[in-house]
């Protein structure tokens, strides 16, 4: 060990450095250099004896044992996810033949429920989500979009008193309404925009429909 390394070790013991880089250099040296490790152990032992902390017969240097143990451990590899777990395949194995879509729609929790959390102060929606046994996802900003009643008879959402059950009920109803429509919109989209056109383009119930051109499905099997 050079004098410089000894100096570094001494500085490390006293936690006395002139710069960050000096500190990391010292630690690096201690980790890499066996001599330094040995000196470190002995300095610590001297310190402990001087402070009357060392006990005769106590094995103070456990680093070698730890290193050996680590070497014996098998390498940790993140468990690779089964591509399509069997249990997940079973989810659609359930007989679903006589389930009308309306029924399943009613049970569906809001698709992408995370998108609709934090309505207003978010507490009710989040609460509802958690009650259903769901975790909420990471929230980046505590406040999201705002829900503004258009009607003037409803006081601003922020100032609603928690004791005011009528106002709370009103808010709950608004949230339910918002969720219902947003879910419904997502569900309608799940039937495909292009394909649906074929089925209903003949209808003439709106003016906009007059310019409607049926669009063809575009998915040639490759």
């Amino acid at each position, binding site marked *: 060990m050079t004098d410089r390394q000894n100096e570094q070790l001494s500085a490390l013991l006293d936690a006395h450095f002139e710069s960050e880089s000096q500190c990391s250099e010292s630690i690096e040296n201690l980790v890499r250099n066996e001599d330094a490790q040995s000196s470190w152990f002995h300095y610590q032992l001297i310190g402990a004896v001087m402070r009357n902390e060392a006990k005769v017969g106590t094995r103070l240097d456990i680093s070698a044992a730890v290193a050996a143990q680590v070497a014996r451990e098998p390498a940790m590899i993140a468990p690779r996810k089964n591509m399509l777990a069997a249990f997940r395949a079973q989810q*659609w194995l359930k007989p679903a033949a006589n389930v009308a879509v309306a029924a399943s729609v009613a049970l569906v929790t809001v698709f992408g429920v995370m998108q609709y959390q934090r309505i207003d102060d978010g507490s009710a929606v989040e609460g509802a989500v958690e009650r259903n046994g769901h975790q909420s996802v990471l929230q980046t900003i505590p406040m999201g979009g705002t829900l503004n009643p258009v009607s003037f008879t409803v006081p601003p959402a922020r100032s609603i008193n928690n004791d005011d059950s009528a106002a709370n009920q009103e808010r709950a109803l608004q949230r339910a309404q*918002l969720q219902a429509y947003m879910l419904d919109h997502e569900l309608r989209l799940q*039937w495909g925009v292009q*394909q649906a056109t074929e089925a*209903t383009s003949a209808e003439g119930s709106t003016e*906009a429909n007059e310019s409607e051109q049926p669009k063809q499905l*575009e998915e040639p099997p490759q």
Partner: protein
Amino acid sequence: MKVSSQNNWKSLRSSILRQALLLTCLVFFGTAAAQETAQERNDRERSENIDPRVVAEGELWFQRMHQALTQLNYTASFVTVTNHSVQTYRWMQSHTPAGSRVELIETLNGPLNQSIRLNNQVVYVRPMSRPYSTRANALVSPIPAALYQHFSKIDESYQAISLAGERVVDRNAVRLRLMSRERNRYFYSLWVDRETGMLLGVQTHTAEGGFVEQVMLTSFQPHSVPLQEALVIENEWQHVPPTQELEQAEPRSQWQFSNLPSGFELQRSQHIQVAMNGPPADHFLFSDGMVNFSVYISEGAERSTPMQYQGELSFITVEQADFTVTVVGRIPLQLSEQIANSVSRKP
């Protein structure tokens, strides 16, 4: 002498005040004029005066992306960021040896939301419902379905411009700006891999540049051979629940939309019961090729409460004389409001 000097001072002061006022006015109108010019310039740049080569290149990159999304075999993961949430997804697409196309998108955090597509059939696995399947050639997911389509499906309403390259997911990407020809809807930035044409990211923003939503791939692995997972899904497909058909009820009343934003066309109209025990309503689905919005018109006792909400989706319920109109879609709230107010009974 004293009096006259005072008078002079008064007149001087009032003239300074007048000048200051005039100057303020000038500055005010000048600024307004400057703003107008900036906006005009923006509009101009957006329309014809963009370098045609940039537009042609943009369309070419869009086409490459369309090909990659319909032909590549890959596994990827991505993150969606909105103003109030972050979610992570796994994304896989592959052909099978039999020639089918399989796509899977699932959430990685929270309850499992899984969407799997085999050619023109999609199965949705949601935590609170039984799996169900629909007939559609695209999944409903954070990746806009329009990006899988040929550019001609959206070129009436949007323009693609290629911009400088950027490094995304440690890959060399080209950035496309997908600009609406109208300022009243969202704009998009797309990142496309130069090597494979794969979509590496989508950012949705307002015409003024305000952030709405971002989808960014965090890993992407193309595969030269069909994925084993796709084959497993294809083999399991016989157990998929039968496809649910849409209700075919006609709207109960005749409605007209007097102020529909240009480029949007009606895709479908039905009489429906809104999900989660919502009211019965006449439903109209409109699309400009890129985004969709729904218009729900409910009459009778079960009416909706007037309210509005702006997130990635905007939502508005407006009360009319004897019916309420609700508009939901991935469009700015202002546009939703314009649409909602444009509905009237057909005379």
